[in-house]
């Protein structure tokens, strides 16, 4: 009997117009999203290689260590292959960072800064399609699951038989779920196939695991709205009421709450502006420089050569002294800056965490966060990259200062071309699967709990539903 109900539900939905429309819409949107995701990724990859090459030639063309230190060079983030599915914050935060002794590291060159047309409306990646469109479609499939059959009169016809209510709702749930999943999963599979075809898109085993997890999250998310639809349908007597309620819930939870959560977090847990922090660091720099100047003057007073013979020895001592005091100045700056930075980062993390947790009231946020964690395109990965730049900058700064001082040729015009063979390289290890998964666990849990909650609600409500 259960099987009969499932089949009937499947058949009923598939032969309806809304199924056809849904299938069409899903296929078009999903394929479009993946196609553009792939294109973007490949373009990013091309640009990445181009800027790496340009950067290399830029480095090699620096005339001396001073310009190398001052102008610095650019480190570009390696594009994430899973950004084909989840754009995350990539386009907003920028993809390259300037490394030099003068600049506080930060990301720049974001896509949105240069192409405002994208920034106005936002991105159309696969996650957006799932988050906004597919959740609406799930609602469209289930809003009249119970109330519609009651209005049709078929509910009481069915229950006039020896059919237990729990079997009826179970059968309907399974049947509609399959008929909902079909138009969603088939384009997703096609999308995956497309991903494998493209030559530039290299998916390692770990990437496939991540994709699998992301797709699992997609299905969980859609199921949340599916069970919600069942639940509301089992609590209302008219389909039009059910649909309105569901639409309002959808608007509130999918669009409004995530935005409001961020604002609330900003009010509850404010963070000093970037200018303030920059100004603080600037002040530290001034302080350090003044101290350096002072000690330089003092030393010069004491050690000024009085005869031409002392001249040569003087140069050597001078170079040593310079190297030493530069190191001290840098160390001083770093220490102070580190304190400022950790304090700032801590407050940012707090606000961020608060924003995340409040917005997790909405399953749409859980989806975003989970998907971003798994695809390594989220804020966390971004922070890790900036942090790596920061630590690399200090490594680079000390290296270049040592070189600068060693190669100082006082009194001659000669330029010493920098020897890049022993320059420390920037390395960045993207987050491993286990860490990403651990971070995504709360989101998986929330979605699963919601599904259980709504389905139980639907189940219990249906047992007492007035079928007349």
């Amino acid at each position: 009997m259960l099987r009969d109900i499932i089949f009937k539900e499947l058949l009923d939905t598939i032969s309806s117009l809304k199924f056809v429309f849904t299938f069409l819409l899903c296929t078009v949107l999903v394929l479009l999203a993946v196609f553009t995701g792939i294109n973007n990724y490949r373009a990013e990859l091309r640009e990445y290689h181009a800027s790496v090459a340009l950067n290399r030639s830029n480095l090699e063309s620096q005339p001396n260590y001073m310009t190398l230190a001052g102008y610095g060079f650019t480190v570009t983030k390696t594009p994430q292959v899973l950004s084909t599915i989840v754009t995350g914050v990539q386009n907003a935060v920028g993809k390259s960072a300037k490394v030099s002794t003068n600049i506080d590291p930060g990301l720049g060159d974001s896509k949105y800064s240069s192409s405002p047309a994208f920034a106005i409306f936002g991105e159309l990646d696969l996650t957006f399609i799932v988050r906004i469109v597919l959740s609406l479609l799930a609602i469209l499939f289930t809003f009249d699951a119970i109330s519609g059959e009651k209005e049709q009169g078929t509910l009481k016809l069915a229950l006039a038989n020896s059919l237990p209510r729990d079997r009826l709702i179970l059968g309907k749930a399974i049947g509609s779920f399959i008929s909902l999943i079909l138009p969603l999963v088939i384009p997703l599979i096609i999308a995956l196939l497309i991903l494998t075809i493209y030559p530039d898109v290299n998916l390692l085993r770990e990437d496939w695991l991540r994709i699998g997890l992301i797709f699992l999250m997609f299905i969980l998310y859609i199921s949340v709205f599916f069970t919600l639809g069942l639940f509301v349908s089992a609590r209302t007597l008219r389909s039009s009421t059910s649909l309105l309620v569901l639409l309002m819930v959808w608007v509130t939870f999918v669009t409004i709450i995530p935005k409001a959560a961020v604002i609330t977090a900003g009010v509850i847990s404010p963070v000093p502006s970037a200018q303030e922090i920059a100004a603080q660091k600037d002040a530290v720099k001034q302080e350090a420089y003044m101290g350096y100047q002072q000690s330089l003057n003092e030393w010069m007073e004491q050690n000024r050569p009085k005869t031409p013979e002392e001249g040569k020895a003087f140069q050597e001592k001078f170079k040593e002294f310079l190297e030493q005091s530069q190191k001290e100045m840098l160390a001083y700056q770093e220490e102070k800056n580190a304190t400022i930075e950790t304090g700032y980062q801590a407050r940012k993390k707090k606000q961020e965490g608060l924003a995340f947790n409040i917005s997790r009231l909405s399953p749409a946020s859980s989806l975003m966060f989970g998907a971003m964690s798994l695809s390594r395109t989220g804020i966390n990965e971004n922070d890790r990259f900036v942090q790596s730049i920061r630590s690399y900058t200090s490594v680079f700064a000390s290296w270049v200062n040592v070189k600068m001082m060693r190669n100082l040729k006082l009194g001659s015009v000669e330029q010493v071309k920098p020897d890049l063979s022993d320059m420390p390289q920037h390395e960045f290890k993207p987050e491993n699967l286990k860490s990403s998964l651990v971070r995504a666990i709360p989101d998986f849990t929330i979605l699963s709990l919601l599904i259980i909650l709504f389905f139980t609600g639907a189940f219990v409500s249906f047992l007492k539903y007035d079928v007349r």
Partner: protein
Amino acid sequence: MFGTLVIKEIQETIHNFRFHFSVLLCLVLIPLGMYAALKNYEQRLTEYRESMRLYEQKSQGKITYNFRAEGYRPPLQRSVFAIGLEDYLPNKVLTERGGNFAISNEKGINNPQALLFGRLDFLFSAGFVLSILALIFTFSSISGEKEKGTLRLIVANSAARSQVYLAKVLGNFLVFLIPLIIAMLIGVLLLNASSVLNPFSGEFFQAFIVIFLVTLLFIFAMLNLGMLVSTLTHSSITSMAAVVFVWVILVLAVPRISPMIAEVVYPVKSEQVVNIEKQLIRENLEKELDLQRRELFEKLMAAYDLDPGFTTTRPEGAMKKAYAQYDEEKIPLEEKYRQRLNTALINIEREFANNLQTQSRIAVNLSRISPASCYSYVISEISGNGPRETGNFYENAREFQNEVREALYDKYIVKTYGGRWGTSSSTQTAEGFELGKLKVFHMSNYKHISLGAALRSEWIDILLLVFFNILFFAAGFVAFNRYDVR
């Protein structure tokens, strides 16, 4: 007859469940949107003032011939309607002696979580939520009445179909107006409570009225669209599904797909690549210039029979003459190189800007299929943070650079010659110029795009909104005349 029809439509709608929901949503979301954007504006204002203060503090008394003045873009009051591109627009300009002022977005991306979901502002409330509300209001206007059986009753009287349709449109519009007006009044009162903004003053109030009217135009178009869908379907469930699909496509899909299509159709190099190219050219040319200057210097020193390896800042005799000649001959050389650099840079920048512009224009034009896009563009431009603001900022930045150049840079003549450390320089000031008298430069005359200019530049979107209204109304009208009421 017409009056009766309108009144019945109004009464029926008011007693409907949807009306209560819509009122609730309107009254909550519109003021909320304005409030959130107001807070955002206040924060930007604070940051702006803070930046200026810090800049003033660190620059006071430290102005030299090389001084890089900082100009900051002041927040615009009108931006409480739409936050638009505020997060991505450049807002700081650094002047430079050589003429290459630098533009940056100084605050950077401070809290990316805010950007994940988009901002909450009036534009979101009206463009996103009100649009679906409007569709919900009217989707079953015709098909629902057919289902209930009341449609044939009405048409069985001597009421012309055109009257019936018009009455429905008008009735729905009037009812929708009530919560909208109340909500906007609440919003204005919220704005009034803020200390940094007086919503009833001059340009702001004008902008408010204009935005209200444009919103009406947009909502009216969506109401008509809902009616149109209703006349094309025969059961309210079908209408509902159709309306959801239509909304997804028009409000969500079309605006986002257009830039992507534009990118595929007309790809453009990224800014990063362009910057690196510019930097390379600059450094290459500078190296060349340096080489040339060194050669010149050595040639002259040789001509005067002097040792080029020895330089001093206090030349005497033959050396003095050599230096003087060097300074003279150097100038046309430098000038030539500066021109080459400028031309090359300008060409790259212009090409890049043009390409971006074209791509952007393609995207915008594609997206104009949707009235929601048109509406967004109008509101963003009026709020002073649409795509045109980038160009506007460049203009202002250029002006600022010129101001500083006239007041400071041009007053100094810098001489450089090859020397021990590479190049050294000395400076000479112009007649009658006193550095000490200079105050720190601020970009105090920033010209935002005025309300009038914004409207003029958005004429096409406004026209399109009117056109959509006519299109949807006419189509629905015609469809209803042939509608099967049985």
